[in-house]
């Protein structure tokens, strides 16, 4: 069992007997459609969740008029944004201006390809999955930079430049901290990384060794920064740069930026879960004969963990003030990168001396001896 796209492909071949290439194309297209709309819904849901969480934190209520508890607020926002006039400033670079939001969305949504929701449900289990996820999300910076430049607005430009510097810098500690994980598993495939972990906390890479323990915080911080979330939201700092790179965007195009940001929250949270918290791994007694039920439990487990992290992201967003741009760079280049190197060394020596066993396993081994 490789992944659902192949399953679907086999299903089509068996039942309809059409050309192999065509069937592959159809099945991948269908799967892509499902996953994209899933992420779209998740993005929309997150906007609603963010407003409700913010309301709770700020002793307000938040949207509660549209639908039960305001759950359809995202639909209202979506309808409105679609119906808005599509405004392009007269002096904007029109092709670039039009293209930028799509690049952002593509960058974020493509990362979903390698994210395994369960042992079976993954669009493509690439053997360079980690590299792919880290690389493709960087496409967002292209979109942001493009949009900010094309807007022909100084506030946008400042936001775009800040964003570029920030994302490019924070890519390094993020990659270095993931490297610790890769070092342990010896594989860049997401499924391999998850399979190397277990369902219980002591089997997670988070508790594997001191190196990975610290590496998680570095990864999470850098991921937040890559996603332009508070306390690293300097590219769209509204009290400084009006609205940063999306100052000139309106209606649908703005909603793409918006959606990309929230989808990215989901992506980074799920990556954190995959790398450090055992992904979809469930305890043995929950694995039943029925394949579908097992998968559903796995998905639920994965989504639950992911939403815990999403909540933490939102919580941070409404608690902390933002850093200044030079403090941000200082933090990255002077602290996070050296520390992530140290983490890498610790993990490497752990792997070297204890043969990849986790900290707890080693400890228990010592006691039982």
């Amino acid at each position, binding site marked *: 069992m490789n992944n659902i796209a192949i399953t679907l492909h086999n299903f089509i071949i068996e039942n309809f007997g059409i050309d192999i290439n065509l069937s592959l194309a159809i099945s991948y297209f269908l799967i892509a459609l499902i996953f994209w709309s899933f992420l779209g819904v998740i993005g929309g849901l997150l906007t609603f969740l963010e*407003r409700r969480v913010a*309301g709770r934190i*700020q*002793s*307000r*209520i*938040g*949207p*509660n*008029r*549209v639908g039960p508890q*305001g759950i359809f*607020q995202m*639909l*209202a*926002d*979506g*309808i*409105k*944004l679609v*119906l*808005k*006039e*599509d*405004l392009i400033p007269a002096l904007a670079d029109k092709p670039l201006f039009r293209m930028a939001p799509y690049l952002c969305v593509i960058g974020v949504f493509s990362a979903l390809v390698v994210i395994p929701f369960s042992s079976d449900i993954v669009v493509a289990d690439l053997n360079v999955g980690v590299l792919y996820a880290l690389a493709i999300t960087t496409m967002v910076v292209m979109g942001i930079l493009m949009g900010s430049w094309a807007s022909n607005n100084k506030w946008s430009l400042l936001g775009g430049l800040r964003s570029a510097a920030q994302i490019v810098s924070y890519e390094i500690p993020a990659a270095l901290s993931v490297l610790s994980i890769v070092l342990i598993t010896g594989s860049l495939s997401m499924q391999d990384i998850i399979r190397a972990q277990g369902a219980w906390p002591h089997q997670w890479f988070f508790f594997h060794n001191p190196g990975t323990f610290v590496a998680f915080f570095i990864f999470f911080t850098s991921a937040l920064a890559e996603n332009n979330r508070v306390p690293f939201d300097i590219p769209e700092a*509204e009290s400084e740069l*009006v*609205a940063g790179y*999306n*100052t*000139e*965007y*309106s*209606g649908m195009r*703005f909603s793409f930026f918006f959606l990309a940001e929230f989808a990215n929250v989901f992506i980074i949270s799920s990556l954190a879960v995959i790398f450090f918290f055992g992904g979809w791994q469930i305890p043995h007694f929950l694995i039943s004969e029925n394949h579908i039920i097992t998968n559903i439990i796995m998905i639920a487990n994965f989504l639950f963990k992911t939403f815990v992290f999403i909540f933490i992201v939102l919580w941070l967003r409404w608690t902390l003030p933002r850093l200044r741009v030079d403090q941000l760079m200082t933090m990255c280049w002077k602290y996070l990168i050296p520390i992530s190197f140290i983490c890498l060394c610790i993990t490497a020596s752990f792997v070297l001396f204890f043969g990849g066993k986790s900290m707890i396993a080693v400890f228990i081994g010592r006691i039982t001896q």
Partner: protein
Amino acid sequence: MEKRDHIETREEYRTKENEVQEWSAYQKLSDNVLFTSLDKILNLGRANSLWYLLFGTACCAIELMQTGGPRADLDRFGSVFRPTPRQCDLIIIAGTVTLKMASRIKILYDQMPEPKYVISMGSCANCGGLFDLGYSVLRGIDKVIPVDVYVPGCPPRPEALTEGLLVLQQKVKNEKFLVKEKKSI
């Protein structure tokens, strides 16, 4: 002094209202059912997502802040503030508008994408209010941009502004969106 041309007498207003009603009745017949019900859904969406511009000119700005705050909480009705006019549906003119500021507000209004709405908040924005005696205050924002809802008060309480927003939502819900009519300024 001669009458302002855009203030209508009550009789004039009534006849206009009748005309509108007749027109909409006619429109109802001629529209097909699908369009009207689609219109309803779209308007429901638009009415519940009126994002306003983070912008206040004077005293009312503080009440605007407090309306967005914990006690009144405009977010309940789906209204959040956006810092840039490009992403706004609604501009709340919160406070006195001076002659120096008037042209800037016109620019802000022009920068907003259609469909856009204006709430004039407080006496100063409605008609100059207390500062009618001054030399530098615009006597009513409606001299510069069209206004949808007037909220009286100096400054209006958060409840008043919330009511103003609800009235605007009602107006949005009753609009015809798919069958376009030109907005007259």
